[in-house]
């Protein structure tokens, strides 16, 4: 609903790392996520709360467990709002160039 929250949530390396972990395997519990980070349970909870507020993470209950899922829709909305409209061709060309240069480096 709010682009600011999404940008703020993404402006943190730990939170991006959490999203990458969920991208690899979705539907994880707090305990599973915590075990992969050098951080207290409270710290992970705090970051997950920011991601949930930005709707980048959605939780579902399964029995007694609370599972965390990556919700890519807010990123898609930003893409459609900020990238598609103005710059997709240029961005794609630059991304290709970057990939090519880094592969040959």
């Amino acid at each position, binding site marked *: *609903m709010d682009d600011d929250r999404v940008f703020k949530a993404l402006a943190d390396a730990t939170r991006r790392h959490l999203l990458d972990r969920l*991208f*690899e*395997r*979705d*539907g994880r519990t707090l305990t599973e996520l915590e075990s992969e980070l050098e951080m207290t349970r409270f710290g992970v909870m705090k970051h997950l709360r920011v991601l949930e507020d930005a*709707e980048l993470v*959605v939780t*579902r209950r399964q029995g007694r467990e609370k599972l965390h*899922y990556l*919700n*890519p*829709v*807010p*990123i*898609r*909305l930003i*893409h*459609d709002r900020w990238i*598609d*409209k103005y710059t*997709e061709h240029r961005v794609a060309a630059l991304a290709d160039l970057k*990939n090519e240069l880094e592969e040959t480096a």
Partner: protein
Amino acid sequence: MTTMTAQATQVYQVFIKATPEQIWDAITKPEFTQKYFFGSHVTVTRDAYRGLNADGGDLVTGSVIEYEPPHRLVHGWRALYDPETAVEDDSRVTWEIEAQDGGYSKLTVVHDQLEGAPKTAASVAGGWSFVLSGLKTLLETGKPLAG
């Protein structure tokens, strides 16, 4: 480019400035779905969910498991648009629509039971975000997404 890992349970959520009834119509009536759902003409009855292309060919079919307008729709999903996904097991799609403050509704789409349909899982993983973004744009602006 990171490889997309296709999950067996996928959850998508979006807030839309619309009533649950408007969202229900937009996901169950072909005049709406053709504007944001890859052009597919979706019809939903108490028994069957069907997505057709412009020529009337089946894109997606599934039996309706729960039908509670305007809050909950659960149906099977067999993707017939690709011969490789068409032969996979049926998966399941759940639409949940909840009214929120300020004239918004929360739409959650859960696509699960994809264990027996890995190609379908990979195929829909990129698609749902695009579809829901288009649905939001259509309901909030009355226009389909550009491009």
